[in-house]
């Protein structure tokens, strides 16, 4: 590679908190890397794991999943369901041979434009360090079982 690798990241946002954090970042003219492209869902609970596979399949190098802080969900507790799914899905992605660092879960409130911005920049750097998604090379069967994170 001669040039620096610029990853493309798909970010899922929830209508109530993280999408508004993105709006807030914009209104306050905070700057972040243009590598992230956002999709608005009503709630992080709407996130079908298929969406993430689809993003990778179509060439995304990383996927960011965002939602309201635990306890702040507009729909009471659906972000907890997103959290459950996220970790399950991460295991599947690992089994498929994907680096788990290519997906990231981030909670931001509507007031946290600065955190949203900083975390996006950090994630872009992390994915950049991983290099482009190489589905075929990455799909070499994993012999060792990867230790799983236990959450929730």
């Amino acid at each position: 590679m001669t040039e620096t690798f610029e990853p493309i990241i798909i970010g899922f946002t929830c209508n109530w908190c993280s999408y508004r954090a993105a709006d807030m970042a914009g209104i306050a003219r905070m700057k972040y890397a243009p590598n992230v492209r956002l999709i608005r869902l009503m709630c992080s609970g709407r996130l079908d794991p298929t969406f993430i596979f689809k993003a990778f399949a179509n060439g995304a190098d990383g996927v960011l999943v965002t939602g309201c802080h635990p306890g702040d969900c507009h729909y009471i507790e659906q972000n907890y369901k997103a959290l459950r799914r996220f970790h399950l899905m991460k295991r599947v992605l690992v089994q498929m041979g994907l680096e788990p660092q290519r997906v990231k879960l981030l909670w931001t409130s509507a007031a946290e434009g600065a955190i949203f911005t900083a975390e996006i920049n950090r994630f872009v750097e992390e994915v950049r360090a991983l290099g482009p998604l190489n589905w075929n090379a990455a799909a070499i069967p994993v012999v060792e079982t990867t230790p799983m994170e236990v959450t929730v």
Partner: protein
Amino acid sequence: MEKTGVYVCHCGTNIAGVVNVEEVRDWAAENLKDNGVIIARDYKFMCSSLGQELIEKDIKELGLTRVVVAACSPHLHEATFRKACANAGLNPYLCELVSIREQASWVHTDKAAATQKSKAIVAGGVRRVEYHEPLEPLHVPINPATLVVGGGIAGIQAALEIADAGFPVYLVEREPSIGGHMAQFDKTFPTLDCSACILTPKMVQAGSHKNITLLTWSEVTKVEGYVGSFQVKVNKKARFVIESLCTGCGICWEKCPKKVVDDVFEAGMGERKAVYTPFPQAVPKYPVIDAPNCTYFMKGTCKACEKFCPTGAIDFNQKDEEINLEVGNVILATGWDPFDARRITQYGYGRLPNVYTSLEFERLSNAAGPTGGNIILRDGKSIPKVVGIVHCVGSRDKNYNEYCSSICCMQSLKFAHLVHEKTGAEVYNFYIDIRTPAKGYEEFYHRLLEEGTHFIRGKVAEITDAVRLPGEEGKTIIQVEDTLTGTQLRVPVDMAILSVGLEPRHDSKETAKLFGISCSADGWLIERHPKLDPISTMTEGIYIAGCVQGPKDIPASVVQGAAASARVLGKIQQKEIAIEPIRATINEEQCSGCRICNGLCPFNAIAYIDDLEVSRVNAALCQGCGTCVAACPAGAISGTGFSNQQILSQIEGLLMLGYSKEAVPTP
């Protein structure tokens, strides 16, 4: 194939300054042809009437069946463009607004990358809009009753406005009386009219209004439903006084032998009895028995109040009562808590007797307060000859609260005037900056300057009783750097008043959660828009007024109370309102009856139909989060407005382009 129009907004230079809109337009026209784009235009301000007419004209003349506008956030102008579509006869839900301002031009500096990203965003919108369905908004009737939470000046104002317009209001207050903090104050700045004189008539009005149901000594415990139809549970705490029998004569608290320090209304400066009303003009007039401090409840004997009550209104067996309310709208006006000055240990509050907080001073200065309005030190006899007032205590300080509490300057000036007037003492104000930005405020500041109050610019470092210099014996010494002269000063005073800042209620986060709205990291509730909609919240039908939204003075709180009520009245007058038709529906042909979705729904909107062995969504209860849609293993649930096809197509669109012009991602 759909006929799609793409409209790229310049937003003056807000978008066009960074994103090459012409390039985005041309790219969409050229490369999204296969996705139905038949026309792509750009315009300086798409949201202007001319911009909207452009879309309307194309819908009519070119027969567009889908519209994509690339401009600002849908939270700002989605409604505008939907309306434009509707005007031209296109179902408004066939329009998609994608944000290239908040998500591209405003947050990126690399023009080429921002332009490229904008193209991808437009492609995502174009691909998504193809699968939009024509929808009709759901119409829900508006219950004309309103719940106002918090009986301070903002809540009272809001309740009165709505009640005067002829609609029922439930005013819920946690304390035994309405009035809030304003009832504690002595004078109000800048006019110095007495707080009680202007507040109590309003309290009485609220208490006796035929359309207002007052629920004091009560707290909201549960809120369900949505705009137009909220179901609210209120816990009416046991007063141990039968309201229908009580005349408010006051014999009970005269006879009550138990004295308790009043930490709430008197800010710890005075005492009350175990059966009490917080202050003489309390509304309602009925007292409450403070059970944890009542001799009868502690020891099982006494009952003096019961013995002497001429109407037999005391009832020791009263229990908390749960009240269910049905309301259409909610106004939250739960107010603020004072900053706890003990947190700044170097100011000695709580340790040095002659250090006071602003609320304590208000009570001291109040003619109805513990000293009858005489400014006397805690020893009960000395009148201060030198008084120091410290501004910004707990405000504008990274260690505590970064924000400016906005009222403390004026409050401190008011104190300075009152001290001067009542005691003739020498007054020092220690300030960082003087902020007097409202009507008559700056004039008041000048009046104080003329009265001879000393102003020392500098943040107080320490308040101490450690004598270092002659003349400091028996004094409270304020150590400060005068930043205008660059000198260290030690000012010996008899009384130091800490002008403490305003903080969100200690339980404001729980309040936000209870009502399903957001609050900032500080704890202030978040408004829909900081400038254009400071009294609405992200949740339809829930409004905020007064200090619950952020620190503000009395006029601003009254304005917000009135503004929130105007909004509620507007809703009530509409009788029914249209709400977003974003709902989940289950295709019963596909449903296997596994019931996974049933347990996922936090609103109990999905029920299992035994005879048919399928699940069904109750559209009235469904809030449209889409969690069940994502979970259905059979793919039988579809989320209106956010269907799988819509999202998957948007992902495809967003990934049509790589980061730079050349790079195209390989699927």
